[in-house]
């Protein structure tokens, strides 16, 4: 055998080994996160229950029902629209594992774009998982990508023209929060949007909340974005939050910014549509080293510097914005929104307990509220 053939075979074995090892790591992120139904969960379903075309697809995410025996309204909470915004998913998990509803009901989807959790963004250096110490051991969750996995939806067009004829960058075709109200015959992401839209319509959700995070340099941050139908409720909730020293901005959903939850949920169903944002340095452009610690603590000296230069839309110091702060804001704002829905629409009252308030949460660790693995 010629010498260069021997070298080629050796290098092929090397390439196969690297492919195997990296492939195992990528495939490892396909494994579902463990979310434990808490004492308030009465049943679970799947998104395909509302849109059967999703049955058997990776994106067929789990729907958790927290129901009471007393009639009232329905609150829908959606986490994981963007899997690189972890406080959204973690807030939904906290509701699932802790909350008991005593009037009306709550429907929670913690991982809206399940496909996005199965990979993360190339060249971002993101961690694959985030870990929490609980009183009963370690729990972990995936840190995913902003967008649907290309192995589930490919190729991206050069320009994504949404369902309203608006032109967006090509990769936005895999952004769940650009594809509403969804299209049963559209691309994979638009079909997930359609499934979520059907859930809201078929379950007759009164209040629907889409949880997010944003880069500290993004103007819409520490904010509640409300469809105009929900503006009164949202403005009253913000007053309540400000009384508790939690600063929020109220943004009214722009009528021409199409495809987003706060616009299309309100336009294409009878729900009161809300989107909320907290500050997440790990998805920002100014961040330094990107690792699990940054995701969980938000501590980043580059953002401290940016704040000193007046470049941010949130206060930022050496304490960062830990996950307890970000989940605490979401949990407390959900409570404020529900309280004000109850006030404005008493016939749609929803009552629940088991959720910590902001100040309790920041005194503890997020893992303290996770249930034990069986």
């Amino acid at each position, binding site marked *: 055998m010629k010498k*260069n053939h021997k070298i080629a075979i050796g290098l092929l074995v*090397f390439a196969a080994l690297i492919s195997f090892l*990296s492939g195992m790591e990528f495939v490892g992120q396909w494994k579902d996160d463990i979310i434990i139904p808490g004492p308030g969960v009465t049943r679970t379903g799947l998104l395909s229950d509302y849109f059967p075309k999703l049955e058997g697809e990776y994106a067929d995410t789990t729907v958790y029902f927290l129901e009471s025996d007393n009639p009232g309204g329905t609150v829908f909470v959606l986490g994981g629209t963007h899997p690189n915004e972890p406080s959204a998913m973690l807030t939904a998990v906290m509701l699932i594992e802790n909350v008991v509803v005593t009037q009306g009901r709550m429907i929670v989807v913690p991982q809206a774009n399940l496909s996005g959790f199965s990979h993360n963004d190339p060249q971002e250096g993101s961690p694959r998982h985030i870990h929490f110490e609980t009183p009963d051991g370690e729990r972990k969750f995936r840190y995913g990508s902003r967008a649907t996995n290309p192995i589930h939806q490919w190729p991206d067009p050069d320009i994504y023209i949404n369902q309203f004829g608006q032109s967006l960058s090509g990769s936005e075709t895999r952004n769940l929060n650009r594809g509403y109200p969804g299209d049963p015959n559209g691309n994979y992401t638009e079909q997930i949007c359609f499934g979520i839209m059907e859930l809201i319509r078929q379950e007759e959700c009164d209040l629907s909340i889409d949880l997010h995070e944003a880069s500290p340099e993004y103007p819409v941050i520490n904010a509640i974005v409300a469809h105009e139908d929900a503006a009164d409720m949202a403005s009253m909730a913000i007053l309540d939050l400000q009384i508790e020293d939690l600063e929020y901005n109220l943004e009214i959903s722009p009528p021409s910014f199409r495809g987003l939850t706060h616009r299309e949920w309100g336009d294409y169903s009878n729900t009161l549509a809300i989107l909320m944002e907290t500050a997440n340095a790990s998805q920002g452009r100014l961040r330094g080293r990107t690792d699990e610690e940054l995701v969980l603590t938000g501590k980043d000296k580059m953002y401290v510097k940016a704040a000193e230069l007046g470049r941010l839309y949130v206060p930022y110091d050496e304490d960062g914005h830990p996950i307890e702060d970000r989940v605490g804001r979401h949990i407390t704002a959900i409570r404020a929104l529900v309280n004000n829905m109850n006030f404005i629409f008493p016939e749609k009252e929803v009552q629940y307990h088991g959720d910590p308030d902001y100040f309790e949460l920041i005194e503890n660790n997020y893992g303290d509220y996770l249930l034990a693995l069986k």
Partner: protein
Amino acid sequence: MIAIIYQIIILFFLVLVIWDMFKEENIWNQLTGSLVIIPFILRLLMIK
């Protein structure tokens, strides 16, 4: 359908690069070829 065409194109280039690795006399070019085929393999198998 378009994904299958895409995979056929990947397979075609994968075979070409491997073929070139056996013809190539320069070890550095062979090493370059081995690095090039890694993403091709992962994409062909729809892992990444």
